[in-house]
């Protein structure tokens, strides 16, 4: 159960967006004069996944919940690590090769907690964010990534 929290929008921000995350401008606001370190993680669409040649993919999200959940994850990172700000954005819709699917920025007075918080946020969003990936392959087939094998065929 997600607990309601006071959100300080200067320190915690989250977006689920169909817009490009290339040089995502709102990240510039993450961090303050007190922060000597910032770390930006970018996830991109890879040309191959588990040995298969990816041609394109689409992310689908339960957008309202995903945005709340991503914001909650950023807030939890501030509770767990000595970081002052955490911003994160996840793309939805059709993505081509090399496009940015997810971006996470954390800022802190010192660098060590940035690394720990950034990794934690990525792991948390991968396990908790209600977002689904539909991968299409060069051979024409496609699959909902993560779906059990039995459920990944055609519909009923």
């Amino acid at each position, binding site marked *: 159960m997600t607990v309601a929290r006071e959100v300080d929008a200067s320190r915690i921000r989250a977006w689920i967006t169909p817009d490009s995350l290339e040089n995502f401008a709102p990240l510039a606001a993450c961090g303050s004069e007190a922060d000597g370190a910032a770390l930006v993680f970018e996830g991109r669409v890879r040309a191959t996944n588990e040995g298969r040649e990816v041609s394109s993919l689409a992310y689908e999200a339960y957008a309202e919940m995903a945005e709340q959940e991503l914001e909650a994850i950023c807030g939890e990172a501030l509770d767990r690590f000595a970081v002052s700000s955490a911003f994160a954005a996840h793309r939805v819709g059709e993505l081509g090769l090399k496009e940015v699917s997810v971006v996470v920025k954390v800022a802190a007075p010192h660098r060590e907690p940035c690394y720990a918080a950034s990794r934690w946020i990525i792991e948390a969003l991968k396990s908790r964010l209600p*977002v*689904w990936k539909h991968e299409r392959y060069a051979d024409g087939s496609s699959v909902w990534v*993560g779906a059990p094998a039995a459920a990944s065929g055609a519909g*009923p």
Partner: protein
Amino acid sequence: MTLDGLDGDISIRTLLFGVYAERAALRECSARVAAGSTVSDLVEELRRAEGWSWLPRRVVVAVNQSYAEGGTRLSDGDEVALIPPVAGG
């Protein structure tokens, strides 16, 4: 749409995503269940509906946009999302 056979006292807005939306061939439906029903009760009702046997018994569920346990009691008008294995990142 309203699912046939789910005609209880309270109405649950049920959302489907990803592979579940593909299996059910719909993204949203209204499910009526008995007052006092839990998340698990709703899932069992859905699994009994025509063409819904693919729905895993232990499906992950969110109620009103927060993850919820099977024992969570539902209220009229609740929004229940059936959450396939997530793959963000």
